[in-house]
């Protein structure tokens, strides 16, 4: 299994596009967070949580990009036909699926850890002292630890979900479009319709990505009056179950269909 993990890691890191996406995934949230931190420090109404919410929000972009890397790691294998030499080298397909899944999930979590710590420590360093002499302290903000851990878990689960979508659809354009549009468009539309019908904003908690994004929030729930959304942990389990379900369905598909 170690050899297989090495093989899958080698595949992942020998494609330039993965590096490009990974670098964008790091630079975008960190840059935005640093800019916000550097330019809002004089505002006496600015809170540490404002800066952290910027980091949490922009980190979702990183999560989506890392998910794209995960989806493309399998769809490109089918697109370029390398899945055949892959399965010729390792005929037990479940081992390939497991190794590749482990590599993309761990990679996503590691890169997201870099994003979060670079954004957090960088922002804390550039925050100017306020004109009234007080200073913002991002590191002492309540809920920070939960936000950081939740964000990293979110990155891993989103990569797992994207990987599952990739295994099911096998097509790079279709998988990437579905993975991007699902949280950004489909859940927005479906959520809007559901809220209109039920008059309950918390119905959004049943939408997998909306629920999953709670993992990376500084607070928890959906922030509404009388919020009864899932807690961070329950949201994580719910999104995790969806991601695991997608990857299990994808694994079944890979097992049964011709390579």
């Amino acid at each position, binding site marked *: 299994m170690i050899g297989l993990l090495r093989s899958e890691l080698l595949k992942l890191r020998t494609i330039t596009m993965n590096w490009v996406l990974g670098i964008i995934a790091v630079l975008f949230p960190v840059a935005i967070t640093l800019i916000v931190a550097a330019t809002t420090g004089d505002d006496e109404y600015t809170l540490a949580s404002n800066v952290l919410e910027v980091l949490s929000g922009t980190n979702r972009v990183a999560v989506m990009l890392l998910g794209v890397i995960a989806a493309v790691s399998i769809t490109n294998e089918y697109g370029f036909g*390398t899945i055949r030499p892959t399965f010729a080298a390792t005929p037990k397909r479940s081992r390939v699926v497991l190794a590749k899944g482990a590599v993309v999930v761990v990679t996503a979590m590691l890169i997201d850890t870099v994003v979060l710590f670079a954004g957090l420590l960088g922002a804390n360093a550039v925050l100017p002292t306020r004109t009234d002499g007080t200073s913002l302290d991002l590191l002492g903000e309540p809920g920070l630890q939960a936000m950081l851990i939740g964000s990293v878990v979110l990155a891993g689960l989103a990569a797992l979900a994207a990987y599952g979508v990739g295994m099911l659809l096998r097509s790079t354009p279709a998988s990437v479009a579905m993975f991007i549009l699902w949280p950004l468009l489909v859940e927005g539309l479906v959520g809007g319709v559901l809220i209109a019908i039920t008059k309950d904003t918390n119905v959004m908690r049943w939408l997998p990505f909306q629920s999953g994004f709670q993992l990376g929030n500084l607070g928890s729930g959906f922030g509404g009056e009388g919020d009864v959304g899932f807690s961070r942990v329950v949201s994580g389990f719910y999104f995790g179950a969806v991601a695991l379900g997608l990857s299990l369905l994808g694994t079944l598909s890979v097992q049964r269909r011709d390579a």
Partner: protein
Amino acid sequence: MIRVQELTKRFGSKIAVDNLTFDVRPGVVTGFLGPNGSGKSTTMRCMLGLDRPDAGTTLFDDRLYRDLPRPLHEVGSLLDAGYVHPGRSARNHLRWLAAANGISRSRVDEVIALVGLEAVAGRKLRGYSLGMKQRLGLAAVLLGDPRTVILDEPANGLDPEGIRWIREVLVHLASQGRTVLVSSHQLSEMALIADDLVVIGQGRLIEQSTVDEFVARHADRWVRVVSPDATRFAGDVTAAGGAITAQVANGFDVRGLEPARVGELASQLGVVLHELSPQTGSLEDAFLSATSATVEYHSGVPA
């Protein structure tokens, strides 16, 4: 030794491989022939478990492919030289394959040198010609020093030097006692390298035999006669039951009589012969004859 047993593969209502059974013995090159769409590539994919067969098994030295712990050490396969990521270098392509089967990096460099790609091993594969990709594919085949080699059209895109090289490699591998199964449409090449043949049509086995037996069974045979008295002797041959089917310089081709009978006739009539030789059609002739009933895509000649 490869043993294919009752292999069947359907795509919807179409039967691509139909209860196919054949053996491939070690120590010789076995040609795998069939017209376009006859199921050769599907059969090879099923043998390796890449396509899921509806029925049947393939055993490699009495073991199923999926039971081989490190298959590249047992079976080297090249089904399509295009199965590479264009953004990856040749060296990295071989490295991920090697890593999956616990093969060292030094072996990667060895096979790169063996196929003559050292100078371009670091280049992205999008810049490779088909011939270069074929060489890379063969490097992948040799990576684990396997006892069995399966190649689908390995000479496609190769220049004459490359074709000769791959011919020598295959013959060399067979001479080492390995099992070598090669599909090819280049029948003249196959005639040069193959000892055995497996011929299929519409997914079914047409024949398994040696090349010589196959040609003897399916190719046309005739006798060539060259003589200073060719015109007169042609009449005598016809009277004896032969059919003159072609005229050559100072001679003719005759069918329907064995060479010995033609020789005896010449002797009886006192005809001087400059040539009396049995002629046999090529492997291509034999192949076309054997598969004519199973050709799926018929073509015509432009008017």
